[in-house]
């Protein structure tokens, strides 16, 4: 086997391993859906699995692992946007429970 062929096979092998990992994680989400747990626990568990799936896709399918500068740019910007959206949650709890700041 030539060096180029070996490199090609290892690249496709890595793609396949990452794909199987993501597939397994997606399967775990479906298993969690049938667990006898509260909706909030289910939400947290599924979200954690989804974040791990997304991280694998970003790092290996979208090749951010090979470009650290772009990786940090993407992570910082996205985390900032997501954190900025979280301020509304307290109001959604107020709508359903009357707390906090109901009085």
């Amino acid at each position: 086997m030539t060096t180029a062929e070996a490199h090609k096979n290892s690249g496709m092998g890595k793609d396949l391993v990452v794909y199987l990992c993501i597939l397994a994680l997606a399967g775990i989400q479906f298993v969690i859906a049938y667990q006898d747990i509260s909706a909030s626990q289910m939400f947290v568990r599924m979200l954690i699995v989804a974040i791990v799936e997304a991280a694998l896709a970003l790092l290996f399918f979208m090749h951010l692992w090979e470009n650290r500068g772009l990786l940090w740019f993407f992570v910082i910007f996205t985390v900032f946007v997501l954190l900025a959206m979280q301020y509304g949650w307290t109001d959604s709890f107020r709508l359903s429970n009357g707390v906090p700041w109901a009085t």
Partner: protein
Amino acid sequence: MSQADLTMQGHSPVMAEPTFSVPAKKMAMWLFIIADTATFAGCLVAYGFIRNGTPNWPRPFHSITNVALMTLILLTSSLTMLFGVRSAKRGDKSGAFRWTMITAVAGILFAALHIREWMGLIHEGATLLQNPWGTPLFGAAFFSITGLHLLHVTGGVVALIAVGLRYKGGRYHADDLEITGLYWHFVDLVWMFVVPLVYLLNLAH
């Protein structure tokens, strides 16, 4: 040597190194992806806000078969896209075109299953503005989020076919295929969040 060439040479240390060592076209796609991430995050956070603030949120999904199949198809299409890009980077034009078209077919299959599921829900009485299970916000949230995703899949399929054909015709290069692949992986990535939040959390037990 032209004045333009001399100018380029004079600025070569700056010109040779694009932002974040990424070519301009790829950087533009990344910026689009970041902007689209904010769009989908906004939709999903708003959905979470509505779901959390609405008592007795409906759980109308009785089977996971269709959504599991859709997930399998979309995830597999990401793999075929990777194979297509790898083939293009190797200079294997026919292989790259073949894998890209397989990816597009998977996208069409995904869209067909998605529409079949929509038709089932519509047949049960669910629309954008009402549904028989309680709060009308369910229909609004479900059809808006999955519709936006379906729109992205449809756009992706069109882009894959167009870029694939132009790559085969020699007008586009491996980099163009890679950039289209980035978009396709992003569509796949969004689905990883849509499935648990919109489908699995609304599964009837």
